[in-house]
């Protein structure tokens, strides 16, 4: 019987054949590394921070402690920089989560991801948007969807060797036409942005960021405003003026996927941050003219320190009316809308138009909360879900 192995302990004689230096060097080296690592780890905040309110018996406490230790060891940042730098400089790669194009262009990998469930998810999103339309229509409000094309779609020329899967090619137009077929206003932002890019406009998306630039946001704002105006609604008038700050380095969010490289100034974009101010003081004669337009969406709209593109401000300027901005970042476009429908803002500031900004890449993302809650206000609340990995 020889089919299976027999116990085999390595012969001691084989070990004695090695040079004398190997009798002590590896052992002492390992001890030195373990000792130094232990000292550094023990003096790190991660090792001294003990988790609270975690179940000890079920291993939750140890898992939380280990997570804190891993995040807090002092060699973590140098390790990220070293391996990030090696990956980028040697192989032209980013950390998982971003795709490196050419000429310094970076893309979120969310714009490349596919799954067999994509078609179903997109259909579900179309159904959900229609539910929202009907929900808003009960209050007499119109829904306008600003479907933002993927950066990889608009700037495919900078992709280099990377290719967006062909199955995603029709996604934008199919969804937009689906919206229009349901009677939902959905301006073709892709066509508008593509025309602007072809017309020699400066970059409409940042090279190193997921988001659009002030120029890209401006094109989108004017296109959306044009469609809103075509609805023939009477909106309270306002006078707005935009301003641009002095050029400054803008380290894009995708540079986080290039540790070890991201702090090099040459990798960052330059931007003249955009802001908007109201010239006529607002508030109407007696300060009660109301706000008829509400903007719901993601970080492409939400106010934040990184928001230098000022989509909401440019929208106000293009529409000539005040916009209530309830966009939220880090949660995708659908949960902010669900929350808005349940929010006091909806009743305290009843809109005539709701502009819903939806980045294309979220159409395939599953949101279990939407399955259970639907679009209806005051529906059953479910715990939050982690947002998709992008920065919106």
């Amino acid at each position, binding site marked *: 019987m020889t089919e299976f*192995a027999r116990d085999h302990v390595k012969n001691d004689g084989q070990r004695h054949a090695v040079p004398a230096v190997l009798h002590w060097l590896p052992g002492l080296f390992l001890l030195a590394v373990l000792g130094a690592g232990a000292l550094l780890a023990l003096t790190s905040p991660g090792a001294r921070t003990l988790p609270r309110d975690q179940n000890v018996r*079920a291993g939750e406490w140890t898992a939380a402690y280990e997570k804190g230790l891993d995040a807090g060891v002092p060699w973590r940042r140098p390790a990220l920089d070293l391996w990030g730098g090696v990956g980028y400089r040697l192989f032209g790669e980013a950390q998982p989560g971003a795709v490196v194009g050419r000429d310094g262009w970076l893309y979120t990998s969310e714009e490349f991801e596919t799954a067999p469930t994509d078609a179903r998810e997109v259909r579900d999103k179309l159904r959900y948007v229609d539910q929202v339309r009907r929900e808003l229509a009960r209050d007499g409000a119109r829904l306008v969807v600003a479907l933002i094309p993927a950066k990889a779609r608009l700037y495919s020329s900078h992709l280099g060797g990377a290719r967006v899967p062909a199955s995603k090619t029709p996604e934008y137009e199919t969804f937009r036409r689906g919206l229009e077929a349901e009677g939902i206003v959905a301006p073709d932002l892709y066509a508008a942005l593509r025309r602007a890019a072809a017309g020699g406009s400066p970059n409409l998306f940042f090279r190193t960021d997921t988001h659009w630039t002030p120029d890209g946001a401006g094109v989108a704002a004017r296109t959306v405003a044009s469609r809103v105006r075509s609805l023939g609604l009477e909106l309270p008038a306002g006078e707005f003026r935009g301003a641009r700050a002095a050029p400054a380095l803008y380290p894009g969010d995708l540079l986080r996927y290039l540790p070890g490289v991201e702090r090099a100034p040459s990798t960052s974009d330059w931007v003249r941050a955009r802001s908007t101010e109201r010239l006529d003081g607002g508030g109407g004669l007696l300060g009660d003219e109301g706000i008829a337009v509400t903007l719901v969406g993601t970080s492409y709209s939400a106010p934040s320190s990184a928001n230098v593109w000022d989509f909401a401000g440019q929208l106000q300027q293009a529409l000539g009316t005040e916009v209530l901005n309830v966009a939220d970042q880090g949660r995708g476009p659908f949960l902010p809308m669900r929350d808005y429908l349940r929010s006091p803002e909806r009743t305290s500031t009843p809109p005539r138009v709701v502009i819903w900004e939806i980045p294309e890449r979220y159409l395939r993302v599953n949101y279990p909360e939407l399955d259970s809650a639907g679009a209806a206000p005051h529906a059953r609340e479910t715990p939050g879900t982690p947002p998709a990995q992008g920065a919106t």
Partner: protein
Amino acid sequence: MVFSSNVFLFLFLPAFLVVYYLLPFRWRSGWILVGSYALYGWWRLDFLWLLVGVTLAAYVFALALGRAEGRRRFQILAVAVALNLGALGYFKYANFGVESFNAVVTSLGFAPFAWAPILLPIGLSFFIFHAISYLVDVYRREEPPTHNLLDFAAFIALFPHLIAGPVLKYNLLADQFRHRTHTLEGFSYGATRFMTGFAKKVLIADSIAPLVTAAFNQPNPTLADSWLGALAYTLQLYFDFSGYSDMAIGLAAMMGFKFPENFNHPYISRSITEFWRRWHMSLSSWLREYLYIGLGGNRKGRARTYLNLFLTMVLGGLWHGANWTFLLWGMWHGGLLATERRMKEAGLWRPSPAWLTIPGTMLLVILGWVMFRADNVADAFGMYRGMVGLNGAGLSDTLAWQVRPSELVTMLVAAVLVYVAPVWGERVGDVGSRLLRPRLAVAATTALLPLFVLAILKLSAQSYTPFLYFQF
């Protein structure tokens, strides 16, 4: 707590080694037990009772076996083995059994059986096998029952092999618990093995892992997708598991223990029979001694020998996990082993050149790994369809963007190592230069030291990746 983690490397291991070497020899088994239970309890404290229970049961039943005579001995063994297999069956296979049952009843239109899934305790398959082998050895009178509960408990829980093997027999370590030597040379040997295994796991296996996941997630993999995924997994599994085994052997050596080798360049095998003498050798030994021989081995005629080979591998496959894929993988290898044996006995097995037999064996092994890796049988057959080109030839665009140059380079390095290492180990000395071999050994070890540091840094830079064999 996995070996390739900061908490193991920089908190557990230094503390364990310092106390271990400060203690007198007679207290070291106790410290090994404390350390091993701490390592297991780090995963989940509430499952430590299972490890303790299996240990105590094996200890008590073995003592009873030692005192009993005649038919009573067999009855005691049967109860003890049944209890162990019962625990394994409950924790490892109950979910699978209920799911399979529910799949049948729901397809017939009946309501499924309500069932709360059971958590699989890590290392269960290994410590159950350790306990069974000890009981059978005592029953066969190959090993007297031990009265030293501390040493026995320390053997079962010994942390280098607790979570993912190698599968050891008690008699291999019993003497070592009573007496073993601790030298700087032995420690250095252990350190070299540990650092080698760590580098294999972190620098190679973990680097290829995302590509494997991406390829096996393709809904309709093409010829290129499926072969790239299959080859990547073939390399990942070897470097992951042999890396783990190196770490286990190295840790044991740092404590003065000598563990058997678990791998011997399996990918240069020239037959599946040879493959199983080189791959996961401790499991192969266990299967031979306690399953194949238990089934009658080759003592009951040719047909029964083939059947025993087949059944041994089927059960060995199922031991890896509760999934039809493992069952089919076991059937594949059992069928191949039986076929090879039949061919040899019929005089049909002709010596063939290595350039033909090594790739041929690898092809069979890779086909098996596809089933082993796939989430389910349907996915595995999806890969097989891709491997024969039924879904197109070129790399699909849904996979292409995920293939990173560094992964391909790592695969190339791994493949070179797989086929250069055997030459390194066996030929260099034969070629003759008495000067060359020591210099190469020094060069290799010198290269290993910075690689180990780089691997530690990579561990911190990458997200957590558990060892593949933990799931078994």
